[in-house]
């Protein structure tokens, strides 16, 4: 699996990685071994922008730490 396939895999399965990608794109790319060239950073940020455009925000619902009590 090449590094861009790893990027894709992490992006669609790991909300924490996606959040890092949004907050510090070069660091997130480097964490999976991708050289954060300006072209690649720009491509990633365009992808992130399109997600925000579709969803209004980037983050998925908090699925690990939510403490919404049941309705009772």
């Amino acid at each position, binding site marked *: 699996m090449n590094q861009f396939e790893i990027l894709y895999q992490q992006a669609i399965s790991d909300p924490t990685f996606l959040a890092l990608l949004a907050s510090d794109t070069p660091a997130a790319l480097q964490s999976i071994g991708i050289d954060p060239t300006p072209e690649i950073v720009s491509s990633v940020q365009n992808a992130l922008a399109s*997600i925000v455009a579709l969803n209004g925000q980037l983050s998925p619902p908090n699925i690990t730490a*939510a403490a919404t009590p049941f309705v*009772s």
Partner: protein
Amino acid sequence: MGSSVLRISPQQPLRSSRNLFLRAVNFQETAEVAAQRAVADLSSSPSILAKHTLRWMGTRFDVLRAAEYFTQLQSLPLLAMPWWLEESIRGTVDPGFQADLMYSTINFYYFTRILDDAMDGHAIEPAVLPAMHFFHSRFVRPYFRYFGLESQFWGHFDRLPAMTVEAAAAESTLHEFSAEEFLTISARKAAGGVLPLAAVCVRYDRTDLLGQWESMFGMFCRWHQMRDDFLDWNEDAKAGSASWLLTEAKQRAHAGESVAAWMGREGLAWVRSIMKAWMDETVAAAAGLHCEKLMTYLGQRDEEFTRLIDRTIHVAEAFRGLLGVGVASRSA
């Protein structure tokens, strides 16, 4: 919650703890007290077993806020369903009874978590394994307060937890899952969670309701298990763990296509479709139970998951182009 939560010191014996339950009148408070009692019972006397078991629990849960694990929206509503069932039968609940059910269920859950960790090969100290006796005895004991040895409850007690441990045994033998194996094994691991529902039905002489509630719970459990498998697919794939989702990915992927690429191309939509159908069936079954809180809960779960999978599909669409960047980079 907050300052209104009733707290139990580890030194308080069982009977005194139960008196405190009588003052806990809402679901959240009762769950807090039951969970605190389960932890307090373990830590009530200094022992090697308690020390190691509390340390293990600390790696799995926030022991100081043990109830949250059971009452957050994304959890199986193991404590809430018996409460809702009793409310639907009587219009109110006996808080002491519900607290005892919760205490039992929480101990059964800890029992099964130790079992799971040991069976899955997760890091767990051998010194923790004997705590299964501790948790199992406290899972059983509350029921003796309500049901004599001749009660039909004990038939359900024999039947339901046995389904959980049978499913655990069967699952450990599988390296791939068919749809049927997912439905008859993976999705039935939580069958023991029906036991407190059986207790409510037997206590209030409404065993006519048990079949409907058990059926609905089973439908919900397959949805809940598939959600877990979806959330964990990448970790499971890395760890070499099996699930029906990963089996389908291997079978449906094109030659040379990775699991991630399949997920993005069609797997996410496949999961969404199955989850929608299963939630619709669960909601239809729940509608016949005349329990507004259950319907609200299912609506919240459906909404939360739909938002999650739709967003993940959008992420996959947005990042698909970067797979092409990788190809271009390699060929450059």
